[in-house]
């Protein structure tokens, strides 16, 4: 018996091992093409945890991991340290090689790809002085990121980063002019990149107006790919808000349109680009965006919601007429004397403590819709309650939409996209662009000035219709051109701003202090004075110029007269007189006075000829003498007016679209 015991034990062990094989097989058997595999394989597939679900599997990486004998983390740590050392000692080739090894050990660790791609494109690239070398290293970062998407196919962060790199590194860096040019010409990069395994690029989707790929459009491609991953729920969106995330594709179209116009595509190509940008922005506004309040909103819903609020409000007010005031009075009666005193003090005169109290008072006397509804007569109380509830919820949603809109500057970009399609806008830009070309390349000062002034006319029209553009980047960009114009005038010995300068509101918006010109500066608060003193009575009190052709003619004639004056002046050293009261003299006298020189223009009410004639000319733009002056100054006088008219009319048409 004892001799059989080892044998028996062995048999028992063998049977136990065989029995254990069954659950092991059930749990661990691998998946194949035809079978789903064991429990673990099925769980991996269900929760997308296997490496194959994430992306490609790299045999080199797998073998390297095996070779580390379980110390993959230690090896990766050491490699990171080496990479930092190589970066510090500017050993770029070894640095890049080390990164490759790190990613082979950690192909599914997103932070590695994100961080190091950024490191290469943003930190390493700027270590090189030659912009071509910088471009080369920016591309390396992009290639690195694309490699990361191969192993992490449905990772929106990497895909969005690609969009970001193409957008901002190629299109917004200091070297953006050079990078955009190099990118357009880099056919080798296009050939390799467009054929990438993650999201191949259709050439027609990314070609710019010159038939070559544009970085902004390629950026959009990657953002759209990232969007598709999120929309199809292939992967959740992490690390960024949906509002910002979904705003990127249309923003790339906006930036594309802006960029090509800056490069001189001030024609239907530019307008088409803005049109597409506008449509994309509206589509973005129609997209459902989850909010942190648990409901979804659409940015375009604000106006309809406000209309609905107005309707409900009217209906509610009809039902609850007078109740609101009644409740308010009751609440105010309940305030203490001190509180009543504080409530009567204007907000800007409140002390710190009083301000605190005023907030409390405000909350005490605020009358809610529910309170009003409760006081409505019994027969209509239920309706009032329902309306009150709807007002509150609609108001909350509208408020959320308003705030979300502000985050992405929705209204501004929508208006901008609309405005940029206008013919006036395009024409204005074209004139300024041409003026700068004439100034910078041809040194044609007079030609440049004429183009500038044509452009200012059109821009003035635009700003009148869209004053919001004065205070933003648009205004800032144009202000740079105005500064160039100032420089040009300086070279012509002309003063700045010239009399009747159309963009005074822009100067004000940019914080530029300019002394008022004698009856001439078209500052907003003085337009009424001008309208009283001359025949151009179409200007409204708020300075808004309607699309009245007569006023346009008057304005154009005025500017022409100014041009004539400027051309006839011999020196530009006079200060503008403060007094803008008009002195009516003939143009001939004005001309003679001008020719004698503008020496004493500091006395506002002096009887010298210089200021008066200038003021007079500006205030009597329709006078024939102005035409004579313009003829003698050889300024093309007739052209702007008809042009402005026709452009304005076409602008009206396009605005009506």
């Amino acid at each position, binding site marked *: 018996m004892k001799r059989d015991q080892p044998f028996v034990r062995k048999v028992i062990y063998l049977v136990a091992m065989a029995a254990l094989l069954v659950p092991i097989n059930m749990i661990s058997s691998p998946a194949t093409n035809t079978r789903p595999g064991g429990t673990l394989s099925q769980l991996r597939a269900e929760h997308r945890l296997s490496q194959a679900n994430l992306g490609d599997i790299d*045999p*080199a990486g797998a*073998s*390297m991991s095996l070779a580390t004998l379980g110390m993959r983390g230690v090896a990766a740590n050491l490699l990171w340290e080496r990479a930092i050392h190589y970066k*510090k*000692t*500017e*050993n*770029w*080739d*070894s640095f*890049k*090689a080390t990164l*490759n*090894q790190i990613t*082979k050990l950690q192909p599914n660790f997103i932070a590695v790809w994100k961080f190091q791609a950024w490191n290469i494109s943003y930190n390493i690239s700027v*270590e*090189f*002085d*030659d*912009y071509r*070398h910088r471009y*080369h290293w920016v591309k390396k970062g992009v*290639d690195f990121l694309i490699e990361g998407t191969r192993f992490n196919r449905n990772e929106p962060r990497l895909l969005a980063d690609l969009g970001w790199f193409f957008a901002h590194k190629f299109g917004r860096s*200091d*070297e953006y*002019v*050079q990078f955009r040019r190099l990118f357009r010409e880099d056919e*080798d990069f296009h050939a390799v990149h467009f054929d990438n395994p993650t999201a191949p690029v259709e050439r027609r989707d990314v070609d710019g107006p010159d038939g070559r790929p544009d970085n902004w459009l390629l950026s959009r491609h990657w953002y759209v790919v990232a969007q598709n991953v999120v929309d199809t729920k292939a992967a959740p969106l992490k690390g960024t808000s949906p509002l910002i995330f979904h705003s990127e594709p249309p923003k790339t179209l906006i930036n594309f349109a802006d960029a090509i116009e800056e490069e001189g595509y001030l024609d239907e190509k530019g307008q088409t680009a803005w049109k597409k940008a506008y449509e994309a922005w509206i589509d973005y506004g129609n997209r459902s965006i989850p909010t942190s309040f648990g409901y979804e909103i659409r940015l375009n819903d604000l106006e309809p919601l406000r209309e609905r609020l107005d309707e409900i409000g009217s209906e509610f007010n009809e039902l609850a007429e007078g109740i609101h005031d009644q409740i308010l009075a009751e609440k105010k009666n309940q305030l203490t004397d001190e509180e009543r005193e504080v409530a009567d003090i204007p907000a800007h005169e409140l002390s710190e403590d009083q301000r605190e109290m005023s907030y409390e008072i405000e909350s005490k006397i605020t009358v809610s819709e529910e309170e009003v509804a409760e006081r409505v007569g019994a027969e209509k109380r239920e309706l009032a309650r329902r309306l009150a509830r709807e007002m509150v919820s609609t108001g909350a949603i509208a408020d959320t939409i308003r705030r979300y809109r502000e985050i992405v500057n929705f209204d501004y970009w929508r208006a901008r996209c609309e405005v940029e399609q206008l013919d006036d806008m395009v024409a204005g830009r074209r004139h300024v662009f041409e003026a700068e070309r004439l100034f910078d390349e041809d040194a044609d000062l007079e030609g440049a000035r004429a183009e500038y002034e044509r452009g200012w006319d059109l821009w003035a029209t635009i700003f009148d219709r869209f004053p919001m553009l004065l205070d933003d980047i648009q205004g800032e960009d144009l202000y740079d051109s105005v500064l160039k114009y100032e420089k040009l005038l300086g070279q012509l010995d002309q003063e700045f701003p010239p009399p009747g300068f159309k963009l005074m509101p822009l100067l004000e918006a940019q914080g530029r202090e300019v002394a008022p010109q004698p009856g001439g500066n078209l500052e907003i608060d003085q337009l009424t004075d001008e309208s009283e003193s001359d025949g151009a009575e179409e200007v409204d009190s708020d300075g808004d110029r309607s699309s009245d052709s007569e006023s346009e003619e008057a304005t154009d004639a005025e500017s022409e007269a100014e041009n004539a004056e400027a051309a006839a002046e011999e020196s530009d050293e006079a200060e503008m007189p403060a007094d803008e009261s008009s002195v009516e003299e003939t143009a001939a006298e004005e001309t003679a006075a001008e020719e004698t020189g503008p020496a004493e223009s500091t006395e506002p009410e002096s009887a010298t000829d210089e200021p008066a004639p200038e003021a007079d000319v500006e205030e009597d733009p329709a006078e024939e003498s102005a035409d004579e002056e313009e003829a003698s100054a050889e300024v093309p006088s007739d052209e702007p007016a008809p042009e402005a008219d026709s452009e304005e009319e076409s602008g009206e048409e396009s605005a009506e679209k």
Partner: protein
Amino acid sequence: MVQEHPLLPFWEWLPFQLLLFVGMLLGLSFFGVFASFLVLSVRNGPRKAMGIVGETIGIGYRDLKSTSWGRIFGLASLAFREALRRYVLVVFAVFVVILLFAGWYLDVESDNPAKLYLSFVLKATNFLVVLLAIFLSVFSLPTDIKNRTIYTIVTKPVRAWEIVIGRIVGFGAVGTIILAMMCLFSYVFVTRGVSHAHRVLDESVEVAADGSGGWRGETDRQAYHRHDATINPDGSGFTDSRMGHLHQVTRSEGNEEADYEMGPPVGSLQARVPVWGELRFLDRAGKPADLGINVGKEWTYRGYVEGGTAGAGIWTFHGLNSRDFPQGLPIEMSIRVFRTYKGEIESGILGTIVLKNPTTGMQAEEIPFTASDNSVDQLFIDRRIKAALPGGQFREVDLFEDLADGGTMEVWINCAERGQYFGMARTDFYLRASDRMFAFNFVKSYFVMWLQMLVVTGFGIMFSTFLNGPVSMLATLGSIILGYFTNRIMDVLTGDAQGGGPIESVIRIVKQDNLVTPLDVNPIATAIIQGFDLISMGIMRGFSFLMPNFRDFAEFGGLNTTRFVANGFDISMNLIAQFTVTTLAYLIVVTCLGYFFLKSKEIAA
């Protein structure tokens, strides 16, 4: 190539190292004798101990005198056959497999594939050969001792010297054969890896716009790059340099169209012989400065000079003569740029080079250049050059006769643009004396690896004389690692590397403290911990100083030439001589130690 410490000429290097070696040898000898005396005194009493020690030394001397090379070679051949029986050629097979799959791991689109491939094969070879040497050397003697086969040897009139030296020679021979095969395969791997061919795209060729009568064109894309080609009117030309190389282009008129022939890549596998000078700086006021300006970089290897000021970097070259540079001076430089404002993005930063006689002050005409930053600029200065005379005149002078004083000449580099800076280090500017054969340079690097292998073998055998196999392996590995991290240990001791010594760093890791805050324990404990760390780091520093440093080549007796070969510089015979002497020194010491340890085993037996 970065070189933080200058290479001394052999005859300048030798005296100090010899002194150091003799001092350490005497020190170690004294320590060994004293330690032996103490141990023996405990067992046998001081008088007898002194006798034993004296007798052992005497025996050692007699054994050394009667060492037979015949017996050494006999034991060597035994060791050789033993190694072959242990299938050491597997190491070579592993190496071949690594080479075959290297493409999976290497960045084939690297900007400098030659450097990458060379680094890869040299490091892989180094790693495998060192491992081979360890495994061969540490198990041999302990196995013989354990199996008692050692008695068949020691009972013969074989000296312990011969046992130790014989094993070193035998295992060294095995390693030599394997290393030679690895060298051949590596060379083929590298040359095939960088080899590629282009063709000029006919449709891209157009007449040069500069009116020179030549042509400009483009090549096709091969090996992840293409070149721009510039062809002279006579039909000869070159491409631009991409990925560390360029190609020669030849145009010949064919029947209908021109034919273009492109040569193989030139410049990727090279062995430049640089002549480096000494660098000093002048500050913006023109006064001598110890270092250049620090523009905020963490790595202070380079100093910067401010543009538009009297600031300059001055290299002083010695021993210049017309025999070495008959036509003039071929210069290669890599001047870094630091801009404080962008300026013209498409233009580089301008600077000037001025050659000066350090004694007479005569200076040549300024040579303007545009710094290329991170690339190597090549410039050739003719032997006949215009020099400035007092009064603003210029006349042509001879570079060596007028501008060099007894072979010593200064080269001044200034940045011409105000607000911009040039960064320089000593090795960023050199004269390219000549080029040696790349293949020979490659073989020299393997020779240095062979020296490393001998040192490791010696250490392994030395440890195996008194430790068993696994412990010997750990000891040998530990010695190599200690030598590898010599600089890091030094940084911890001096405080350059923050975080403290062994105990302090463990505490910081466990408590998840950062490196720079004071240790969060009570002051007494802090003092004890830091004191202990200081002592232990000091001991480690001492040992690491004694151990071979296979990472660096010039500092602390380093033994590594990978950087030379990978960066395309010739390994000078000066360096080879230094490494050889260093290796001999290590071998002498480990052989002596091995002998005495083995002898003490006999005595103990």
